[in-house]
């Protein structure tokens, strides 16, 4: 059943990629002018992602106008997350916007990444990440919004806790090959039900148990202790935004950190859940087995983190977008004349 095509190779994860909707920058500009002024304190924002839904393109972590807190609510700066939208799993993030180019380039980006990674680590240690797995993925954005030129410089990071030494891969194959036909059918149905229910549609990390009668069940992470049973197969599942056939996506990294730190497992079977046209697809989804060896004594120390995104030139560095065409009143006047 299990196909061991890659022997003891390093487990390599495809980085999360960002996408910013034009509406985000419009709303941010108005937010900056009407509410923030020159206040450059970090702003809590929400990013959205969904499982990969096409065999040729990965999904992105997307910022929309709704990612920002409401301008009117004086009470809180926390954006209200919308729940139950299967195409919008919320990821908590933070935006550091600076008022000048100089302060942008002076940001201590290593330290900012570490700060977000620490939140993830603390939530793993406290058990909060098991209760509410949406805090297992986090992101940060640094930006310089040049509102006079309608030009925005920005850079995303998706902090991932590093395992040291790195996890190795025993095998990785399409779920349709790893599972029996009955199991694959049952798991497909269970996943579609999970994704179709408003209460679970946007929960991106989960457990899959398969009983000896090939019946698959999808459960919450916090049920891990409860579903220990010798004759059940257990897979750790996550919504995989990545479409690549030989690499799991980025969210698995922090899940493995949690599994290693919290449950002390040495061998982890994971399930990269992917869809085609909005429905579970077991030939695009992957099942793999990772080996984790964390030396004793290093367990309580916070691991290092990585995750700055490459820009559109393929380098580590900020991206830039100019929205003068849709925001500059003089240009708008010309095009309307």
């Amino acid at each position, binding site marked *: 059943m299990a196909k061991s095509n890659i022997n003891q190779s*390093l487990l*390599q*994860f*495809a*980085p999360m990629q*960002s*996408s910013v*909707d*034009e*509406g985000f920058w*419009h*709303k941010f500009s108005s937010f900056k002018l009407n509410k923030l002024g020159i206040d450059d304190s970090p702003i809590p924002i929400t990013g959205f992602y969904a499982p990969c*839904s*096409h065999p*040729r*393109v990965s*999904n*992105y972590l*997307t910022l929309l*106008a709704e990612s920002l807190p409401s301008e009117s609510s004086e009470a809180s700066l926390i954006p209200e997350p919308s729940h139950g*939208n*299967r*195409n*919008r799993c919320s990821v908590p993030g933070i935006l550091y916007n600076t008022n000048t*180019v100089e302060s942008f*380039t002076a940001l201590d*980006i*290593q330290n900012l990444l570490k700060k977000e990674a620490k939140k993830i680590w603390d939530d793993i240690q406290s058990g909060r990440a098991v209760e509410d797995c949406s805090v297992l993925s986090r992101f940060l954005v640094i930006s310089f919004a040049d509102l006079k*030129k309608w*030009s925005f*410089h920005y850079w995303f990071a998706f902090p991932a806790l*590093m*395992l040291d030494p*790195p996890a190795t891969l025993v095998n990785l194959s399409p779920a349709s090959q790893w599972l029996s036909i009955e199991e694959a059918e049952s798991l497909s149905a269970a996943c579609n039900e999970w994704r*179709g229910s408003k209460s679970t549609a946007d929960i991106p990390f989960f457990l899959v148990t398969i009983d000896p009668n090939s019946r698959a069940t999808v459960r919450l992470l916090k049920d891990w202790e409860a579903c220990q049973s010798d004759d059940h197969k257990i897979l750790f599942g996550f919504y995989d935004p990545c479409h*690549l056939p030989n690499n799991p996506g980025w969210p698995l*990294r922090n899940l493995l950190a949690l599994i290693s730190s919290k449950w002390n497992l040495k061998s982890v079977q994971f399930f990269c859940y992917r869809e085609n*046209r*909005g*429905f579970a697809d077991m030939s695009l989804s992957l099942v793999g087995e990772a080996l984790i060896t964390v030396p004793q004594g290093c367990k309580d120390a916070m691991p290092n983190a*990585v*995750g*700055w995104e*490459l*820009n*559109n030139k*393929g*380098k*580590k*560095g*900020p*991206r*830039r*977008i*100019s*929205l*003068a065409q*849709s925001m500059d009143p003089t240009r708008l006047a010309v095009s*309307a*004349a």
Partner: protein
Amino acid sequence: MVLSQKLHEAFKGTVERITGPRTVSAFKEKGVLSVSEFIIAGDNLVAKCPTWSWESGEPSKRKPYLPSEKQFLITRNVPCLRRAASIEEEYEAAGGEVLLDDEDNDGWLATHGKPKETKSDEDEDLPSMESLEISKSSSIKQNSSHTGGEDDDDIPDMAEFSEYDNIIETDPSTYLVAHEPDDDNILRTRTYDISITYDKYYQTPRVWLTGYDESRMLLQPELVLEDVSQDHARKTVTIEDHPHLPGKHASIHPCRHGAVMKKIIDVLMSRGVEPEVDKYLFLFLKFMASVIPTIEYDYTMDFDLGSSSN
């Protein structure tokens, strides 16, 4: 924007303000939708093709006649692997049977121009398209996204004066995805956010396109025209304000949607299929596929279009 288009916009806006939304069904007679039928058809699309979802858009732009959480439909990150201009021939082959156009091929007319009697050259005063000479042979330019133009380059790219390379993270567990080679002959994978709004004036759905390049940077709306069938790019696609979102977006103008949908419905009925209104958007999206043939959005047709039993 030419004057005739401005005038038409003003006229349309006034009519929309003073007339109530359609409440009586004229789906089979005119190929149009009432507001409640749009909701029914949208709910069915979301249920059958879950990559689509309802959104509420900008609060200030909400339409009072639509439920606040069901203002428009959207599907994001839809792949577009080839430029439409490069597959015109395939379109010709597939378009005929989808469009259900008559022999004169006049199912489509100039956006706001006078109705044309014959299919003349694609010229005339096609609103807001004058400057957009996109020829079939034009290659995809490097600077196709909003990453910067000639006139706003006074701020250098920060990556160039910052020492970010010093902090390159050494992590053997990161898989670096190979970039598509820099070769103009290779058509890059673009992605699209496609939204469907309800056009109260024409009483039909209306499609809006937001394009992104292969690194998910926003495309200029003009470049979106490369992914529109070239027959339509200069006639029926305009760049306008989105009714629920900020910014200018490319839109397929709905002035002939009702008539074409009516033809599709007539053909189905002549085959003994009684189309149901909740299937409207599936028919509509299949018809849209002739305009944007390379954008791979979902519109499953693997089920019965209507009931032929009664």
